[in-house]
């Protein structure tokens, strides 16, 4: 096994684009499938059957590829939001500073207008930021698992739903509901509203779990008395 000379992958993961990440993950998966196929062929499995079996044992290729890419991009989105918020705060501070300088007679009337414009723009930007989820809020994404609970304990309402590729979950009675991009609280309100016509009293709570693909099967035959 030889290491490529300084390919530069260490520490540069933040700079990779989503398409570059997807291509790398795909290459990684293809390598795994090639190894598995070869192993099965060596065990006597016919080549065409080996390919099918390798894919079966690997699981959901597309889903795993998306999950891998998201590991890297999720943090980047959060950092972008923090950066935007910081820029907005800085602009407001600059606006107020310029106004204060004007009152002291240091800046000209043109500066006041410029400061005012800056302040208005900054406040507008902050308003937009406030409407966005903060980094502490959970934003629902495709593949997340929503655990839905009802305040009144109605079992028909409670359950777990995975957000489908189109951003929707399937609710009892009501059908598909789009939840991707919502915060947890927004999803609670949307689901409660969707279910309200069908129940006398309903108030849902939602827990958001990131996709857990850690599936391990325990072979009970390996444990005596299991």
């Amino acid at each position, binding site marked *: 096994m030889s290491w490529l000379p300084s*390919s530069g992958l260490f520490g540069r993961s933040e700079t990779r684009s989503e398409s570059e990440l997807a291509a790398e993950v795909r290459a990684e998966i293809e390598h795994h499938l090639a190894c598995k196929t070869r192993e099965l062929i060596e065990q006597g499995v016919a080549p065409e059957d080996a390919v099918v079996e390798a894919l079966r044992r690997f699981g959901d*290729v597309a889903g795993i590829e998306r999950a891998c890419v998201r590991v890297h991009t999720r943090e980047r989105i959060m950092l972008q939001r923090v950066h935007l918020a910081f820029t907005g705060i800085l602009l407001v501070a600059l606006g107020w500073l310029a106004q204060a300088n004007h009152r002291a007679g240091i800046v000209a009337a043109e500066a006041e207008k410029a400061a005012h414009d800056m302040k208005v723009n900054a406040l507008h930007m902050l308003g937009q930021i406030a409407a966005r989820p903060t980094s502490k809020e959970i934003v629902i994404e495709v593949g997340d698992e929503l655990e839905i609970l009802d305040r009144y304990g109605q079992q028909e309402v409670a359950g777990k739903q995975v957000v489908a590729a189109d951003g929707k979950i399937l609710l009892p009675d009501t059908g598909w509901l789009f939840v991707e991009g919502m915060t947890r609280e927004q999803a609670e309100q949307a689901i409660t509203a969707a279910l309200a016509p069908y129940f006398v009293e309903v108030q849902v709570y939602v827990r958001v779990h990131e996709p857990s*693909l850690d599936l391990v099967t325990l072979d009970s035959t390996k444990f005596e008395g299991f």
Partner: protein
Amino acid sequence: MTSERLEILRGTLDLLILKVLAAGQAHGYTVVRRIQERSQGALLLEEGTLYPALHRLERRGWVEAEWGSSEVNRRAKFYRLSRPGRRELAARERDWEAMSSAIARVLAPAGEGGA
């Protein structure tokens, strides 16, 4: 072969991966194989599920990755344990030992080693 799908404790897969990589660099396929071999076939990892975990560990800086050529003459991504990863592995092993021995004490027949 009969098998039952059981939930394992969250983070267990990370611990298994870190432990395998402590023995040396490996690509994902080898990590799967080693987990299965070391558990003597008892832990049957759904193979693809390893990769999001590997990428998560890479993001956290516990493993480092680099592309190289593998035994099947293809480009492969090799992972190895970083220095912070070794510290994390040691901490998780201690936690695991503490928890498993606590559970063992609870499961021990009543009256053994107690009042």
